């Protein structure tokens, strides 16, 4: 097996305030291979978005803080870089797109300005070449009238186009890794299909690895090579996508898959997971899913299970397997 492009080990990101300590990300391990699409899936509060911001080292200050762990990109531990060195990595080797293309674009700068500034920063191009490259990139991601749109402002575009602009901006330096945080959640189904297709094209044309963060298992099934399931700040299952959908192992993954209604057939009853996610400021000592788990034993709530490899490249955090 080849050396991973990105390797996260025991990453912990906490939010610390006067009287609480929220364990948003609580010791996760993730590997991303070159050109691979890894989906991180989880419900709100599972820590998936904080994981992505931790990789970029953009955890909201002053309360958010990366406590420990390492994030190694191509042999370099990002957490050991100075803030200045880190800016060389962002937008250049790793770039990121966000959920709300409307708010993620600066309303007072033109589209052209916002794309070219990435090139001016990382490629030392002159303005004219940068603009030409920006137009080329916009055409590449399927933006019509690209040479006019560079002079327009974000509010003049539709949601789907804005997300294409975001992708063009993120891909313009041909990064090794693209992090997409719920890139289609704010979009309609038909537009979502367009954007997902575009991301696949980016992967095949540039060889870019993608970390796709989503709560939508449909998107995961459609896109992922590898899936990481997160629950309450931890990875509970990590497997090849085919394995995960064919044979989910962790009770949470199983339950989740059974909770989703289908487009293809009529179901009588949905499975529903009782209760809610535990409070991230006061996690239980044992397995964090124990309270809602249909097969939990008494021992589950006493001892925290470790993430174990139960078959090749299939990791599960459950002691009952």
């Amino acid at each position, binding site marked *: 097996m080849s050396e991973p492009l990105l390797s996260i080990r025991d990453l912990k990101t906490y939010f610390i305030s006067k009287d609480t300590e929220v364990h948003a990300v609580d010791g996760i391990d993730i590997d991303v291979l070159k050109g691979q699409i890894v989906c991180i899936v989880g419900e709100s509060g599972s820590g998936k978005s904080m994981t992505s911001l931790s990789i970029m080292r953009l955890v909201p200050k002053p309360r958010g803080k990366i406590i420990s762990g390492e994030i190694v990109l191509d042999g370099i531990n990002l957490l050991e870089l100075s803030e200045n060195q880190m800016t060389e990595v962002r937008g250049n080797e790793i770039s990121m797109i966000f959920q709300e293309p409307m708010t993620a674009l600066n309303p007072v700068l033109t589209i052209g300005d916002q794309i070219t500034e990435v090139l001016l920063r990382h490629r030392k191009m002159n303005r004219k070449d940068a603009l030409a490259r920006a137009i080329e990139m916009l055409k590449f991601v399927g933006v019509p009238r690209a040479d006019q749109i560079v002079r327009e402002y974000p509010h003049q575009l539709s949601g789907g186009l804005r997300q294409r602009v975001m992708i063009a901006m993120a891909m313009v330096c041909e990064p090794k890794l693209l992090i997409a945080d719920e890139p289609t959640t704010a979009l*309609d189904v*038909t537009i*979502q299909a367009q954007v997902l297709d575009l991301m696949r094209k980016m992967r095949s044309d540039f060889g870019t690895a993608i970390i796709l963060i989503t709560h939508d298992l*449909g998107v995961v099934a459609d896109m992922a090579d590898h899936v990481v399931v997160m629950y309450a700040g931890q990875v509970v299952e990590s497997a090849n*996508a*085919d394995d995960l959908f064919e044979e989910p192992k962790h009770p949470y993954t199983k339950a989740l898959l059974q909770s*989703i209604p289908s487009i293809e057939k009529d179901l009588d009853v949905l499975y*529903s997971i009782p209760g809610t996610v535990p409070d991230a400021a006061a996690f239980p000592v044992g397995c964090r899913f124990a309270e809602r788990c249909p097969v939990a034993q008494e021992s589950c709530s006493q001892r925290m299970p470790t993430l174990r490899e139960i078959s090749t490249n299939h990791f599960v955090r459950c002691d009952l397997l």
Partner: protein
Amino acid sequence: MTDHLLEVKELKKYFPITAGVMKRTVGHVKAVDGVSFFVDPGETLGIVGESGCGKSTTGRMIMRVLDSTAGSIYFDGENITRLHGRKLRRIRTKFQMVFQDPYASLNPKMTIREVISEPLVVNKMLSGRQVVDRVATLLETVGLRPDDMMRYPHEFSGGQRQRIGIARALTLNPKLVVADEAVSALDVSIQSQILNLMVDLKHQFNLSYIFISHNLAVVRHISDRVGVMYLGHMVEISPKTDLYDNPLHPYTQALLSAALEPKRKGQRQRMILRGDVPSPANPPAGCPFHTRCPQAIEQCRTQRPVLQQVRPAHFVACHLY
């Protein structure tokens, strides 16, 4: 008249676009442009469509919180389109609404008892002890504890708040409940809890639902019949199995093709629509979908197709049939 619980005929809502100091009307946003359908007692009608298709506006017109521009609404055989004052208040006890945002739909300054009992109090239907009894019963019905009634909304999770919202809708024993994106803001595991609850309640109280959502799978799960809206028009309406298994309208086909099922299927051929939904302020002539339709013919550009029965109980507005 018929024995439909609710019947909507040629319902329209045009929002004026004003300009200038004098607020001259310079055009109209045709949010809903001639929609007809019915709901039978004990039946759930799903309405799907992308953002801006007019599904929420339709729901609000039925609830009579938004006045319709044209068309008529019959409830239990009575024309309620223009009812107001006391008569409207009397009939409105029979239809209620569940909202999308569990955080914005409960007044943060009211206790749960006040929230749930508000319909009783304003309609002076019960008093004192009886109100408390009723609220306690309702809380148990939706799976909460009766002693939760003394608490405030901020002490509940999203899923619990949605249960409270449902309890409020049930307070007056309605016959019809309009649920507008009622589970869209919830996590998958909570979504299935609420869907199951709604199905249970429907049987328990013989309710009818109008279930408005952009999520095709959820709509399939809960509905008996499903209507598909596009740009203010109902383009197809049919019993759900027929609609999902044999969609007729090219838009429905595209929608279903773009929707993602949490299953691995390898590379599959998807029908991806080009472009965006046109602006409802300036809708295309003829069939509203012809600008994006892969099968559009000359007639589609000029002539608006009407909703007609093509298969038993299966109506579609398309020139191809």
